[in-house]
């Protein structure tokens, strides 16, 4: 993008030079040039000692230089450069040249020669390194020019043998950024210069040292300085990143570098080996000291696994991360990473995991109560024990046990990536992930729970594993518990005992942390859906029914009972025989829950009960396509209206609005689009009503009532337009223009009404001016859309625009009035996807009759838990409003940390608001609601910044405000007077 922009700008720049009539600005450029550089020149000449010169340069570096004067400045800098004795000043000059050549619109090719000349005289290594850095900047800014590249590489090659490491580093960097690998050609037999540039000259003179960048760089893999070695590997990686093919020959060298003494070298080498393993996964490499051969990817996998037990944690993190990216590795090697042969006193011992599995399969439950329970069994053949891990042995076992949590997280992530690509590995790594639930760092625990969820589609949990997983349900961290609920939603279990166990633990969780209610219910819903056959045998027990006796009816408000019912009902959905086991009150409870918790309780086909026809109707025919078609039809029907004053138009609007609203309710996918269109149409309807002909002809005092009605309509229209603009996401420029158009109409209506009711011209003048400004800014913002708006209010207004700005307010009002009434109906084009932002406050529920008591003057914290959907950037826009009964209202901005994002377009707000008030005599309800803050300036920027830059006028016409969305919740509070 940036490159594209630059290119475009550059084209424009050169165009300016070419055109003959543009002589004048060119002259102007020349005028400005000396002024800037001259100042610098004078400063530098004034400098009596290096320190002063350095000060001037540092000062100069802070000011910006225009593209036109860069060249001049560089000349002056270079002039001074040759005079300067002090290294540090020359170094600064070199770095300044680099900075300057980055200036936009400047073509650094013009200063290349001068910069290259400096190399001839330079003796200081540091300055040389800086100069090479400057060349790198120039080179990266001119990626197209082959000649430039060639010359730069020549320089790099010449200085590769420098004794100072920094120079060698920079040379390697240059080679990495600019060198070419493919056809190593030489430019017209230029002695020993390697032709690192590909395809430049077809005529190759034979016999000269022809080498490509890769072999040149790989020579420095064995440099004596670790920094140079690192730079060499980085340069090689750079070559790879530029899309050049690296040869396999360096694989051995790279593998040797894995044992380097320095961590940065090892870390880079891990990357290098990985890159090679991705390039040549299938090629065969021999195993040293044996005749066997393995695939390269397996070999490198083994080597990188080895690095997981490196001495430096930086390398360990790198290695663990890299392992996760090696998906082509053979399963045999992969499974080794989890294998660690245990022994005790030279006898083979089974791991705890193996023992658990064995106990489970043998039907005996884990006791672990005997001392010698894990006593080693068979004797190990001493020669067969491999202590130093050859290959991937136990890499993850080590990685997951690492001291640094960074390594552990990296290992968990890698496990996840590998397990997702291999089901058998997923099965194997299960035990290890479950173990991580017990990590000391919460982040690691959370991550491993997430990972387990991601791979849980592939696996079925055993009872003992489920047991360990469920133990975490008592964790005090809400995030952990919710992640675990999420995990349980996706888990498959094998036996009915597992279901029972899970239910039991979830109920325990519910009693310990009542706030988890919704999450637990949701979890049980999925558990029931997934395992209907496993739930079936448990039903009598769960519902505590008895074949002979009536059991007491459970309390319907008990969350635990609801939880059980949710599980049972969801299982019953796909298990028709289950309903036979229900007792009477269960059916009653079903109908109650189906109403109150419809998202958790599915519709059941109950024997002897006919379902409401409407309900079954929706289920049957409600396909998205037909609904979409209906929506389109309704809208096209509307489009037949040309003028809103037409008879029957209002009725049609009314009906369509009704239809759309109903459609939105039935078809959740289209709710956004339907709501959006309905709201828009309602605006139009309001406008039409306000403009009804007969009322406008009456004298003002006669129709006070009508005036009030029209004013209210205008106000409501305005509000609706803001909702339309900011509450819906997925709008295109076209729709925004339409909305703005409606807003303009509303404002015009307001203006006309003001003119009618008020006496005197003075107040009107400013209002008119403001309106005209708005029309103007509308025109500016929606230039592209104007053709579509030809017949509309604005279109007509703009036709008259030259006259408008000149005329008096009275005339303007008249014009507006007629245009408003004559203008046609503007059709709404629906974008592909419109989503309405919505919010649901889960907590507080507003059901509680127990008031929150607190001492007046002090504060009480109210926990708020809400889900937000389709809200963009909720951190900045969502606010909480508290309305007290006396009309006081507070707006609270939640902390950014209070927002979590559990899914795409979904946010969760868990926060606390502090309430306070003076004493009341009775408990009273306060209202808590969520607000969506908007500011039109912000949106303008977001929408038009990429298309046109001149549209950026934030101050003008920026309106800010809030829209309340989601249902408000009422909470009883009771501030008591302080006791004396």
């Amino acid at each position: 993008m940036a490159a594209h922009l630059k290119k475009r700008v550059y084209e424009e720049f050169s165009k300016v030079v070419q055109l003959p009539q543009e002589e004048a600005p060119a002259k102007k450029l020349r005028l400005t040039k000396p002024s800037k550089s001259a100042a610098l020149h004078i400063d530098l000449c004034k400098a009596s000692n290096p320190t002063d010169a350095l000060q001037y340069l540092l000062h100069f570096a802070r000011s910006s230089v225009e593209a036109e004067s860069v060249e001049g400045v560089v000349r002056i800098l270079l002039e001074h450069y040759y005079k300067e004795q002090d290294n540090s000043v020359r170094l600064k000059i070199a770095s300044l040249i680099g900075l300057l050549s980055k200036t936009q619109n400047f073509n650094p090719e013009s200063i290349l020669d001068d910069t290259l000349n400096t190399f001839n005289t330079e003796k200081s290594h540091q300055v040389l390194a800086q100069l090479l850095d400057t060349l790198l900047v120039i080179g990266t800014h001119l990626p197209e020019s082959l000649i430039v590249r060639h010359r730069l590489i020549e320089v790099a090659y010449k200085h590769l043998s420098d004794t100072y490491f920094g120079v060698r580093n920079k040379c390697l960097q240059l080679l990495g950024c600019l060198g070419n690998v493919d056809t190593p050609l030489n430019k017209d037999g230029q002695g020993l210069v390697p032709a690192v540039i590909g395809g430049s000259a077809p005529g190759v003179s034979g016999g000269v040292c022809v080498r490509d960048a890769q072999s040149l760089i790989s020579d420095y893999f064995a440099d004596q300085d670790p920094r140079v070695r690192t730079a060499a590997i980085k340069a090689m990686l750079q070559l790879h990143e530029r899309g050049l093919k690296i040869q396999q020959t360096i694989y051995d060298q790279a593998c040797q570098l894995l044992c380097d003494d320095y961590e940065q070298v090892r870390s880079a080498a891990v990357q290098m080996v990985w890159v090679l393993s991705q390039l040549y996964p299938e090629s065969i490499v021999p195993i040293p000291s044996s005749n066997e051969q393995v695939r390269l990817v397996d070999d490198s996998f083994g080597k990188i696994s080895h690095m997981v037990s490196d001495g430096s944690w930086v390398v360990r993190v790198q290695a663990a991360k890299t392992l996760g990216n090696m998906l082509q590795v053979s399963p045999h090697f992969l499974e080794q990473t989890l294998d660690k042969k245990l022994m005790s006193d030279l006898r083979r011992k089974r791991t705890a995991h193996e023992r658990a599995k064995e106990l489970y399969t043998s039907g005996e439950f884990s006791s672990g109560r005997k001392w010698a329970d894990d006593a080693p069994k068979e004797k190990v053949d001493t020669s067969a024990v491999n202590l130093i891990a050859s290959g991937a042995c136990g890499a993850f076992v080590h990685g997951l046990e690492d001291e640094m949590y960074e390594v552990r997280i990296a290992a968990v992530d890698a496990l996840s990536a590998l397990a997702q690509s291999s089901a058998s590995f997923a099965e194997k790594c299960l035990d290890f992930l479950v173990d991580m639930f017990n990590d000391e760092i919460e982040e690691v625990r959370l991550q491993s729970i997430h990972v387990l969820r991601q791979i849980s589609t592939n696996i079925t949990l055993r009872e003992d594993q489920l047991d360990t997983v469920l133990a975490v349900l008592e964790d005090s961290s809400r995030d952990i518990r919710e992640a675990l609920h999420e995990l349980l939603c996706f888990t498959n279990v094998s036996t009915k005992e597992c279901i029972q166990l899970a239910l039991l633990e979830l109920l325990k969780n519910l009693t310990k942390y009542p706030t988890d209610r919704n999450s637990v219910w949701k979890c049980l819903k999925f558990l029931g859906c997934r395992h209907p056959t496993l739930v079936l045998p448990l039903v009598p027990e769960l519902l505590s029914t008895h074949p002979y006796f009536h059991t007491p009816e459970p309390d319907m408000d008990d969350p635990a009972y609801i939880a059980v019912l949710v599980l049972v009902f969801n299982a019953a959905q796909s298990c028709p025989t289950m309903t036979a086991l229900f007792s009477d009150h269960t059916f009653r409870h079903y109908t109650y829950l189906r109403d109150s918790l419809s998202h958790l309780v599915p519709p059941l086909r109950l024997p002897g009960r006919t379902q409401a026809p409407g309900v079954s109707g929706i289920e049957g025919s409600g396909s998205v396509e037909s609904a979409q078609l209906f929506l389109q039809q309704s809208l096209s029907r509307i489009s037949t209206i040309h003028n809103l004053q037409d008879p029957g138009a209002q009725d049609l609007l009314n009906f369509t609005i009704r239809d759309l609203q109903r459609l939105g309710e039935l078809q959740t996918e289209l709710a956004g689009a339907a709501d959006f269109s309905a709201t828009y149409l309602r605006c139009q309807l309001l406008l039409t009503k306000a403009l009804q002909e007969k009322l406008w002809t009456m004298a003002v005092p006669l129709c006070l009532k009508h005036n009030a009605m029209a004013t209210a309509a205008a106000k409501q229209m305005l509000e609706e337009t803001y909702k339309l603009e900011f509450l819906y996401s997925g709008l295109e420029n076209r729709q925004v223009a339409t909305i703005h158009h409606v807003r303009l109409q509303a404002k015009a209506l307001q203006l006309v009404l003001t003119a009618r009711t008020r006496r005197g011209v003075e107040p009107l003048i400013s209002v008119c001016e403001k309106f005209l400004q708005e029309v103007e800014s509308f025109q500016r913002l929606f230039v592209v859309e104007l053709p579509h708006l030809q017949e509309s209010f604005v279109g007509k207004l703009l036709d008259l625009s030259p006259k408008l700005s000149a005329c008096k307010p009275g005339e303007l009002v008249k014009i507006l009035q007629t245009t408003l009434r004559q203008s046609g109906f503007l059709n709404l084009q629906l974008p592909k996807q419109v989503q309405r932002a919505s919010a649901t406050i889960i907590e507080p529920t507003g059901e509680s009759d127990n008031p929150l008591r607190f001492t007046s003057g002090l504060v009480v914290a109210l926990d708020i838990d809400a889900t937000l959907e389709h809200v963009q950037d909720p951190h900045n826009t969502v606010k909480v409003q508290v309305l007290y009964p006396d009309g006081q209202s507070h707006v609270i901005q939640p902390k950014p940390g209070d927002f979590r994002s559990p899914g795409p377009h979904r946010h969760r707000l868990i926060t606390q608001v502090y309430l306070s008030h003076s004493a009341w005599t009775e408990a009273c309800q306060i209202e808590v609601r969520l607000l969506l803050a908007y500011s039109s300036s912000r949106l303008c920027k977001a929408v038009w910044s990429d298309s046109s830059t001149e549209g950026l006028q934030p101050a003008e016409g920026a309106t800010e405000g809030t829209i309340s969305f989601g249902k408000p919740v009422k909470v009883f509070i009771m501030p008591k007077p302080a006791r004396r």
Partner: protein
Amino acid sequence: MHLYCLQAMARVPKVLLRDLLGLAVTPGAVTLDVLEGAGQDVGRSCILVSIGGKNIMLDCGMHMGFNDDRRFPDFSYITQQGRLTEFLDCVIISHFHLDHCGALPYMSEMVGYDGPIYMTHPTKAICPILLEDFRKITVDKKGETNFFTSQMIKDCMKKVVPLNLHQTVQVDDELEIKAYYAGHVLGAAMVQIKVGSESVVYTGDYNMTPDRHLGAAWIDKCRPDILISESTYATTIRDSKRCRERDFLKKVHETVERGGKVLIPVFALGRAQELCILLETFWERMNMKAPIYFSTGLTEKANHYYKLFITWTNQKIRKTFVQRNMFEFKHIKAFDRSYADNPGPMVVFATPGMLHAGQSLQIFKKWAGNEKNMIIMPGYCVQGTIGHKILNGQKKLEMENRQTLEVKLQVEYMSFSAHADAKGIMQLIRMAEPRNMLLVHGEAKKMEFLKDKIEQEFTINCFMPANGETTTVITNPSVPVDISLNLLKREMALGGPLPDPKKPRTMHGTLIMKDNSLRLVSPEQALKELGLNEHQLRFTCRVQLQDPHSDPDTLSRIYTHLKSVLKGYTIQHLPDGTVMVESIVIKVSSSAEEPNTKVLLLSWSYQDEDLGSFLSTLLKKGLPSGLSSI
């Protein structure tokens, strides 16, 4: 003669190692090393190292199994009478367990040693507490005499010089030591001892897997000549720690939920802290309310030091101590005797670890009858103790006064050990890359296995000396030599590629060994300094040649022959009837009686030995026919 290679190999110093002591047997009362299975041994560690003429004592441990003189190392091995000061350059203590530092006051105060004793800060802080405690038990309770006193411990501690991690400490001009983190217990360190280019690394006890309160041992690639490693778990590869932790927590959790009481007998330091942290964090995480108690004693003082030396703990504790020091336990409170009868669930840590006496036994007696309760033995128990009996499943215990105690409570065994296992030892070797390996602190049979493995995997020598045995390892130290600048410049002037520090290069010079210093100078300068005249050494040789030509003709024939053979050498035919090849002179003479037999006279100096001998063999073969004289 003046030809010396710069990379002269000198086989001068030797490293002597005497693993003085360390027989098998019972772990004692305070230190603990938890071992799996049976037949382990915890000995006293005391190793003497002689390196580069310096003598260093590594650890000065005590044996808990003996009550007589055998409990201390046999210092008479070093000297029969008199003080040790003149024989030892320094003493280094790796950590505070008594089998590594127990004999320190005895050695320094009773045998007599005034030199420096090095240990890390935490070791220095905790060591005297343990020594004092041990002294109290032996002297005050058992009534032994001829034991060190409190004052002696204090005096001994005054000689201690504290070490920081990764700090290089110069003991004297040549000897330097450096400490590395070893895990194991708080303040445990591995030490690198270096004299010149020779070095030894002593690991003490170390742990390669991190636990809840300590990190893993770490060392850089220091490539020591010898790595002395403990090998307690030479034949064990351990399971991941997480399973054991999880099991432990699950068992405790279940019992507490049932309303039962959990007794965990522990020794005061080390594992106890780990278990405390484990339970503390679990309680915190799970929001549990049941009380946890810790029987007082040594522990409170020790916990205090754990709080202080936070930098020695693991990543998690180090990073979070600003918010909360993990050793400031929220849920763990001091135990009072009366609490044991309180109703409801509780967890109690009590000393000692083997249930042989003290508080843990008292509590056990009270709780043993209830099957809801549980005892978790986190360590190894010596045969004969109650701990050992119940671990083996005995259900009826005979107590004193002929009472029997029925054991109804659940007995669990949970091993938490802080020693490196076989894999860990191999990992350390890979990290340090030693040239030789030496295993101590383990059983011979097990060490044999590990030794084979090490030799096989790393192809380095591995030793496992018995007690009192001396091992000598020949090292390969590089000897630095000063070279005169003139000589170096002259060498540079001769050309050739720039010196590569990784490749050896030969040059000519004279090595002067004088006043303990080595210098490499040019021969002229050496002669001048030593006031000697230069002697020329010339070889002469006669070669008989059958040639029918006259003498000058023969000479010119030789000249053309040599000219054709030796290309690139300066060959001159001098007017005085000689041929000069470089500095070699060739003359021709013939006797009157046999004019056809020519005698060639060759003469060359020592420096041209190669060329001279080549010429003589060449000319012995005769001149080829068909050579024309000029």
